[in-house]
Every structure is written in structure tokens, then in C-alpha cells.
């Protein structure tokens, strides 16, 4: 028996000993090759010197490593990095190394890079990690570098937006300049909606959708009127979750109400989940909605679904059309509103950056220099994009290239300032103007600029998250009966300490309101 044990042990050793070696990250030296390319013949730096700014072109050479999601090829990233470095080299004696990682593995990759101490300077991430990343020291404040190295960031980004990315009085992240307001709605296939013959011109609330959905069900019995996305469905609401976690202003379009409540305990939420359960009973929502592992657009593209709940923004029809390959009709069901959470794409400085000031400098340049921003977003002209209309600034894919085979996919919204870049073919020509108007038209939450710090109630937050994962999707998609599930949900939240979170949030909010009035 001992011999058998030894054999088993030996086998397992052989197998596992090699498992640890597979993880290396190439591409980190990508940009260093271009270091020697351009010398210090610079016209722009003299121009800036004339306006009284410091000449940065004689700084020590430095490479800024930037991380952003997207399934790009390593060679293409290298090429784009070189093109971007040309601009930065002249002005700042800095090279840029752009590394892209697929969306699916991005959060893990970010964590790995931040904890391994590997070189990283600037990174994209969404808002979710903001408070925790600040509290556990994964990112560093950029406050002290801004006046010298990021003066344009300071002036271009309004103070209200900086407030949303500050904690304890320090600025920690650059919010991406894009649509920062949201309204929720319902999108469906236009051709099918027309075929039902239902007059849909007057749909203003979720309840109004019923006749259309029922008609669609009758006309197309093989198609589910409403499909879910990865087990979830957007909740049509105007709540402000005050940065993160449970505890919201129920209706942030009402400037006088600053009471923090548990949104799941409100009548608004109850109405929604009851309605959706009733719809599921009528066969209007796809069964097992809470365990779908597909994107709703993909289900609509496959002819399995008629419509879905979605966020809306200028150009949303075009965006959905790209994904569903069908002409889409979008009903807006809530007012346009904005809150701290809506500034959802942030640019951070990693704690392992050797020269955070240079990282800020690069962010500053990307934010303000259209030429550089364009290279970063769209890649190399003629290879990844082509100018279709110079005067209007419209670009598209070159011949033979499309979203499925490009080596450098373009996600304008992920970069710091899409609004100074080209417009993509198929989007409205004045999309950036529309976006800007959209932002201006939004109702602003009374708590806009407030960022909540959950460090004192982390245990409760974790416990509540687990309760939420049990009920939130199942209730939100109408998969379980709210008559029994909703009270159970609320009770378990209470046991998990939801009231502690709400109390703490209210306390912080009141203090913030007092100091900001």
C-alpha cells in the first residue's frame, strides 16, 4: 500500500510541478524598441514653452505601461504603441506600452498585475473597484501631480466630476468623458413590432409594454417576447446607489429626498418584480431567465427573442443593431438622470508605477490631444481604420476588416476622452454633440459627487452580497414568486446587517450634504 501511495504521490508531483510555469506576460517590452526612433527635434515643445509652460522634452526617458480591455493582437498593440510613442516622445521623452486583455479575463489580470508588483502605470477599470482599490492601496492618489503634470485634466474635467472620483479629499481617478447619464428602457426588433399591428407610439412605462408583448407572443409563438442577459434584467428605476453597495436614494430625480433606503424594500421594486413574475406566468418572459448564460442581444440575433430591457443613450439603436444585426426600436421608460455611479469608467494610477507623475502626464496628453486619442482608440490608419469622410471626421473599417477579424478593436468609450475622437460609421454624425446634450439634459442626483466608503461595514457588505446573489436575478427576471421570495429576501438581508450599511451610508451622506450646502 505504501508503494501505491508513493506512486500516486510521484505522479501528482510530476503533473503539478510544471503547472506553475505557464504564466508569463509578454508585451511588456513592446514599446521600448521605439525609444531610439525620434530624437528631440520638437516643434510642439517650443510652442508650449512660448505659452509659458514647462518644457518636458528633456525629462529622463520613461516607459508608461497602460492596460485596457479588448481582444487585440500583441503585434498590433506594439504597432499602435509605437505610433503613440512618437507623439509622446517628442513632447515628453516618454514611450507608451499599450497592453490589452480580453474583457472576460480583465478583472483577474488586473488583480494579478497589481499584486505581483509587475510593471504597470495606468489602467482602465470600472467604478466597482474604486473604493476597495483605494482602501487596499492598489491605486495611488493623483492629486499631488495634477497641477504640474496634468493641468489640462484639472481645467477640462468639471469639479463635480472630480468629486465623484475623490475619496477623503484626494483625487484618485480620471473619469472617462462620455455619456455620464442614463435612462432605462426596452429594445425590440422593429420589424416584428410593426408586424403585430399594435400602436406603440405611446409606451411610456414598463406596464405599457404589455399589449405589445402579448401581441408579439401571439404573432410569433416560437419567439420569447422578453429575454434576459446573463441571468439578469435591468430594473427600470431612477435610484442612486451612492457609489456602490446596497442603500440607495429611491428616486434621485427628487432633489428633496436624501433618505437612504433599501431599494429592494421599496414599493417601486415590489411592483416591478410582481409584474415580471406575472409576465413569466403568461409566457412573456423566457423560462429559466435567471440562469441564462447568454447575452440578450445574442438571443435576439439568433431569433430566439423579441425584446430586452436595456440602458439607453444617444446612438443606442446603432449600437444594438451592430450586436443583434436587426433594426431595433427603443422605448425610453425612465427620465434621464445621473449620479456618482454613472461615471462608470475610470482611469487609475497603479501603486506599482515607479513614476506616477509621468503616468499622469500621459493621461493628460491622451485626454486633450485628438491625434493621440485617435491612435489609441482606433489604431493604425489603413490597417485598423480608414477615414471615410475627412470633413465630417467619420471613420470605418478598411476593406476586408470588420469587428470579427481586426487586430485592434475600437471601444471609444473605454478611453479617457472619446468625445475628441472620430465618429464611427453608422453612428449619428453629431454623436458627440448629442452625447454632450444628453449629459446636460440629465436630472442630477442631489448626492452627485458623494462617494461612499464601505471600509467600516465590510463584513455586512459581503454578507449582503451573498444574499443578493441568491435572490436578485431570480426576482428581477420574474423566475420566482415574489409573494414568498421577497419577504424571505428582505429578512435575510436584515440578518446579514443591511441596516448597519444603510445607517453608515446615511451618516456619511448627511455629513457630505452638510459640508456641500
Amino acid at each position, binding site marked *: *500500500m505504501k508503494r*501505491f*501511495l508513493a506512486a500516486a*504521490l*510521484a505522479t501528482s*508531483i510530476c503533473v*503539478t*510541478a510544471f503547472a*506553475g510555469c505557464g504564466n508569463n506576460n509578454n508585451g511588456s517590452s513592446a514599446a521600448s524598441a521605439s525609444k531610439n526612433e525620434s530624437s528631440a527635434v520638437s516643434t510642439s515643445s517650443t510652442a508650449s514653452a512660448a505659452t509659458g509652460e514647462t518644457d518636458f522634452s528633456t525629462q529622463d526617458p520613461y516607459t508608461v505601461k497602460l492596460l485596457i480591455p479588448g481582444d487585440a493582437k500583441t503585434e498590433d498593440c506594439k504597432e499602435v504603441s509605437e505610433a503613440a510613442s512618437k507623439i509622446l516622445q517628442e513632447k515628453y521623452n516618454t514611450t507608451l506600452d499599450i497592453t490589452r486583455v480580453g474583457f472576460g479575463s480583465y*478583472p483577474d489580470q488586473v*488583480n494579478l498585475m*497589481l*499584486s505581483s508588483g509587475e510593471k504597470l502605470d495606468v489602467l482602465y477599470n470600472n467604478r*466597482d*473597484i474604486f473604493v*476597495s*482599490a483605494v482602501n*487596499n*492601496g*492598489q491605486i*495611488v492618489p493623483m492629486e499631488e501631480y495634477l497641477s504640474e503634470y496634468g493641468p489640462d485634466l484639472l481645467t477640462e474635467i468639471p469639479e463635480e466630476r472630480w468629486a465623484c472620483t475623490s475619496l477623503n479629499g484626494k483625487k484618485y481617478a480620471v473619469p472617462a468623458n462620455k455619456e455620464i447619464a442614463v435612462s432605462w428602457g426596452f429594445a425590440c426588433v422593429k420589424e416584428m413590432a410593426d408586424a403585430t399591428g399594435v400602436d406603440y407610439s405611446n409606451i411610456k412605462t414598463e406596464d405599457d409594454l404589455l399589449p405589445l408583448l402579448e401581441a408579439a407572443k401571439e404573432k410569433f409563438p416560437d419567439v420569447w417576447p422578453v429575454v434576459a442577459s446573463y*441571468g439578469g434584467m435591468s430594473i427600470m428605476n431612477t435610484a442612486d446607489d451612492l457609489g456602490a453597495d446596497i442603500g440607495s436614494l429611491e428616486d434621485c430625480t427628487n432633489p428633496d429626498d436624501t433618505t437612504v433606503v433599501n431599494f429592494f424594500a421599496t414599493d417601486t421594486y415590489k411592483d416591478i418584480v410582481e409584474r415580471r413574475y406575472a409576465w413569466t406566468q403568461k409566457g412573456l418572459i*423566457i*423560462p*429559466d431567465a*435567471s*440562469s441564462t*448564460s447568454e447575452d440578450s442581444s445574442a438571443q435576439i440575433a439568433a431569433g430566439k427573442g423579441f425584446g430586452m430591457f436595456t440602458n439607453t443613450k444617444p446612438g443606442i439603436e446603432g449600437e444594438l443593431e451592430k450586436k443583434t444585426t436587426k433594426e431595433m426600436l427603443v422605448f425610453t421608460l425612465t427620465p434621464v438622470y445621473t449620479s456618482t455611479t454613472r461615471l462608470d469608467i475610470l482611469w487609475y494610477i497603479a*501603486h506599482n508605477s515607479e513614476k506616477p507623475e509621468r503616468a499622469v502626464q500621459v493621461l493628460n496628453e491622451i485626454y486633450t490631444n485628438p491625434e493621440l486619442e485617435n491612435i489609441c482608440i482606433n489604431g493604425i490608419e489603413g490597417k485598423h481604420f480608414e477615414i471615410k469622410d475627412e470633413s465630417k471626421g467619420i471613420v470605418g473599417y478598411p476593406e476586408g476588416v470588420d469587428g470579427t477579424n481586426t487586430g485592434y478593436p475600437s471601444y471609444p468609450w473605454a478611453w479617457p476622452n472619446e468625445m475628441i475622437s472620430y465618429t464611427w460609421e453608422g453612428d449619428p454624425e453629431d454623436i458627440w454633440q448629442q452625447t454632450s446634450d444628453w449629459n446636460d439634459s440629465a436630472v442630477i442626483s442631489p448626492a452627485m459627487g458623494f462617494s461612499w466608503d464601505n471600509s467600516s461595514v*465590510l*463584513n*455586512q*457588505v*459581503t*454578507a449582503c*452580497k*451573498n*444574499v443578493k*446573489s*441568491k*435572490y*436578485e*436575478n*431570480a426576482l428581477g427576471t420574474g*423566475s*420566482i414568486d415574489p409573494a414568498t*421570495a421577497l419577504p424571505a429576501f428582505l429578512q*435575510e438581508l436584515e*440578518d*446579514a*446587517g443591511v441596516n448597519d450599511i444603510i445607517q453608515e451610508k446615511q451618516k456619511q451622506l448627511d455629513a457630505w450634504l452638510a459640508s456641500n450646502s
Partner: protein
Amino acid sequence: MIKQKKSLGRKLKAYLPLYLMMVPGAVYLIINNYIPMAGISIAFEQFNYSKGMWGSPFIGLKNFEFLFKTKDAWIITRNTILYNVAFIVLGTVFAIAVAVLLNEIHSSRAKKLYQTTILVPFLISIVVVSYLVYAFLSSDSGFINKTLLPALGKEPISWYTSAQYWPFILILVNIWKGLGYNCIIYYATLVGIDRGYYEAAVIDGANRWQQILHITLPALKPTIITLTLMAIGKIFYSDFGLFYQVPMNSGPLLDVTNTIDTYVYRGLMSLNNISMASAAGVYQSLIGFLLVLVANFVVKKLSAENALF
């Protein structure tokens, strides 16, 4: 004195090849299993990336609180242990049964065919398995709801929101998946049993059943005990894929599908709190360690020569 030294030297010399063979394994264990143990300290700290492992503030047991905050701690501990007990008991019974049956087959071609067939599920990725299960259980297009239940004249069942069926489904899937691998180990032991015993038994007039009962099973006992002890060492760990992917991460099933691993994953994935995740890991290791000690103690009482240490 001198004589003793000499014998020690001779002993060393005699065993030197064995020690050399041990070196790679020992080095691997030290690097991969012992050095990282320093990381346990993270569980008692409020970890800060900028300050590092040695500079972060010490906060005692505060990181462990979230596990025991709600009745979840009880549910996930219960699920983890009960599922593993079921897997160990039923898994062993089925694996031995199949190994014995395989051993009774005489055509070597048929034997190879069966062996390969039952090993295939073990090689399938759990993500693929989850879709195989989905193909059976889906309300929209599943085999059971669309074909089987209507044929029996029964109402369709919404499997992914009905928790009561899942303990059986998960155990079934686990046994189906692990059977081939476990059975190979038992089968290898069976092949090694001296044919002489069987011949003697036949002469004494024993039938097939008596041969299995009095020769095969006793011969398997050491293997059963070793494998069971090793499984008990992992009783506090769960196959993440089985409990997360196969139920399609469906919320209403959580009461019966949540184990320590999935709980920690759900709670901490977005929180990004490495200290609390380590705390859960420490809790898991500690209880697992205690269980191995207890199991070994019990084995020692029952049959001393088969105990691990």
C-alpha cells in the same frame, strides 16, 4: 560509537538512491506548500498592496467575522461536508462495483471498450458538463421537460428554480464524472491480486459471489482506506465547477448548492478583499486538517497497520 557511526554511514549509503528520489518531491513541497504558508498572516491583516504583506496593519480575527455573520456559515459548512461524504461513500461503492464487474469480464476487447467509455466523462470539462445537464433540464428545450415528462403525462418542472432536486442531481453528476477515474485505481489493485487465491477458492467450492466477498474485497481494503483518507483530507474543499457551473449559478438553488468555495467567490469577487478571502482559506484548511487527524485516529483504532501516520 565508531561502530554505530559506521552503520549509520552504511545505512545512508544503502538508502541514498531513495533519498535522492525524494529530493525533487520534497523541494516541490517546500516551495509550493510550505513557503506560501507565510501568506496565512494576510488573513489577520487589513491587507494593503502599497504596504505589502509585512507592512499592513494587524487586525486580529476581524476578517473571519463575515463568514459567521449570518446562518450562511452553517449552510455552507453543512453543504460542503454532506456532499463530500455522499461523494466519498457512493463514489467508492460505485467505483468498486464497476471495478469488480470489469474484472469479471474475460474478453479483453470488451474490457478496454468499457474502460474507455466510463473514463470519458472524467476528461470532459465541467463547463461542457454543465451544458450537457442543461440539455436535459432546460425548460425551454430540455430533454426531460420536452420529451420525457410529456410522454409520462406529467407537468414540466422548472429545474433551475427548484432546490429540492439538486442534491440528487449534483451527486449523480459527480459520480458519473468521477467513476471512470476512481474505478481504474481499484481495478489496478484487483489485477494485482494473486490468481492462486481464486483457484484455491474454486477448489474449495466457492462461487463467484463468495470469491468477491472473501477474496476481492479484503484485498481491496488497504486501497479503500488510503483513498478514503485522502478524500477526507479534501472533505472541506469542493469542486468549484460542479457547484458553480452545473447549477448555472442560479440564485434560488443557493441553499443547496452553496459551498465554502462558491460562497467566498460570490462574496469577494467584486469586493476585491484579499484578506477576507485568505481568512476563508485559513478556516477551510484548519477544519480540513482537523478532519484528517480525526479520520486517521479512527482508522488507527480500527486497523492500526492501515493508518497514514
